[in-house]
């Protein structure tokens, strides 16, 4: 069985956010981590590998610096790593990103493709389902449990007040929730090996079945009109009183605002 896991190097949103003058992100200037939902997706793939045997390939699209996140995945136990990087692919929205990744996946063999549900930088949850559409395979998003049964997968798919147990024939794309599992740590041996392993680099020329009009900033239907720091409403009053004074203070405010 062959499993491809799409992972993304994301800015740690706890750190600062830096923009380019055109409103896109200056990713080079920010601290980064492996996107948490993607890491859960990788862990799910590695558990299938542990249980049934599988070859796990991780794919990322980004700056050359995204090599770091592939090394981390190799150290966790992935077998192969592919970095899609090319200047002409920059500034892509989810349409162009999914076109690009689908173009790389057409070059690979896969039974299962796993992506994270969403990345913590964009929070769109769009790229996984869009890749599946470009490849013409079924998608099961919001996976909270994944099992393999013969030539099919059986997945628990989370909704607001319920979950569906879904069965789909492979090949299939699954988007993983971080609730799915607790990702393993890299092992010291794994880290050592990870830097010996080769990361395959794909450029624009390696993408299969992707038109130039669908890549990069120019191939992106959505365009940023404006980006700015969030303006918050700001703090009101803050008091530091005894417990009983605090109670009277709140009671006073509830009366003032006609809540009681």
């Amino acid at each position: 069985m062959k499993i491809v896991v799409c992972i993304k190097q994301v800015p740690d949103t706890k750190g600062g956010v830096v923009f380019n003058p055109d409103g896109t992100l200056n990713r080079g200037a920010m601290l980064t981590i492996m996107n948490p939902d993607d890491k859960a997706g990788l862990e799910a793939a590695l558990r299938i590998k542990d249980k049934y045997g599988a070859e796990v390939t991780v794919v990322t699209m980004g700056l050359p610096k995204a090599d770091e996140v592939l090394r981390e995945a190799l150290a966790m136990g992935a077998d192969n790593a592919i970095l899609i990087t090319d200047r002409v692919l920059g500034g892509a929205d989810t349409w162009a990103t999914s076109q690009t990744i689908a173009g790389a996946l057409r070059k690979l063999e896969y039974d299962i493709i796993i992506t994270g549900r969403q990345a913590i930088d964009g929070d769109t949850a769009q790229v996984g389902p869009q890749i599946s559409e470009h490849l013409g395979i079924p998608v099961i998003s919001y996976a909270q449990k994944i099992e393999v049964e013969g030539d099919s997968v059986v997945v628990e798919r989370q909704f607001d007040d319920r979950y569906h147990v879904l069965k789909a024939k492979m090949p299939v794309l699954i988007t993983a929730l971080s609730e799915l599992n607790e990702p393993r740590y890299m092992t010291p041996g794994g880290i050592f090996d990870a830097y010996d392993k080769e990361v395959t680099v794909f450029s624009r020329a390696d993408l299969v079945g992707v038109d130039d009009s669908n890549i990069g900033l120019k191939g992106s239907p959505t365009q940023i009109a404006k980006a700015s720091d969030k303006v918050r409403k700001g703090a009101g009053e803050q008091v530091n009183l005894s417990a009983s004074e605090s109670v009277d203070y709140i009671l006073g405010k509830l009366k003032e605002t006609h809540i009681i």
Partner: protein
Amino acid sequence: MRQNTEEYRGVFTFAQQVDGKLSGISLELIGKGKDLAADLNTEVTAVLLGSDIKGLAQELAEYGADRVIVVDDPKLKEYRTEPYTQALAAVINEFKPEIFIIGATAIGRDLGPRVSARVGTGLTADCTQLDIGDYPLVAIAGREQKHNQLLMTRPAFGGNTIATIACPENRPQMATVRPGVMQKKERVAGAKAEIVDFDAKLEENNKYVEILEIVKNTKTTEDIMAAKILVSGGRGVGSAENFKILKDLADALHGTVSCSRAVVDAGWMSKDLQVGQTGKTVRPHLYFAIGISGAIQHLAGMEESDIIIAINKDENAPIFSVADYGIVGDLNKIVPALTEKIKAELAKEN
């Protein structure tokens, strides 16, 4: 990837229903759709998919839909990505809307990307504001400025930034919209809409998945998005058992208990009570933040509340940056005493 955008007209909304009941977001989208349609001098069409759901069309009309397109097919009984995608793509190809908005729910965030990829247009996720305006926002010499564009505003980076996005060359302009942010219109009993039955010619293919089982959460849970008063607890509450003191306060005020992500991660409360970026967006009249430090992801889900009262022992907790009234102190001493005083106060009134 450019299209002739001129032939696309009208504002379309996805009318999400589950078990034959319309989701709140369906009415909110019509409410917002009316405003956009007024700016564009056009109409709002709600698209209703399901099996045996035609009766819901009247409710959509009463909340403001000018037209309802109904695709009624047994394949659409339960939500599944492929048949729903086929149906919406068929509607878009037939009716050519200029705008299509969908709720950013667990269904809409799966359906939206698949549909947008199938019809070949852009999609903006999880919008909190929609306007009609110019793109680029200000005229740039030597570059065409397009008018009457959908400007889609959304938070990103865990709520650290706000981006406004346009989709100038492709139609429909598609967005998913965060539930609880837009306002539905007043219901007008007996209001009429044009009802269109549409055969989407659904065909089973390799992308259909099989539903083996549907497991509903057995607990009856409160709808925190509909609550006027929320008493929300964070890690500082200390334990699942100690949420009792929040429940007592909520009961005294006829409010509902909600919580932060840390509480869900600790297993103290269920996920559907979670407020924040990965939970629900709420805007109650009164929001109590008790023992919640106020991670930016939490603030993104509650800062639009009318009145925010925060109780926290750490005077530097970020929650105080959005609180109207911030109380530095021990929640275990303050909350039970407050509940008693509120009860006494209300008893006096009666």
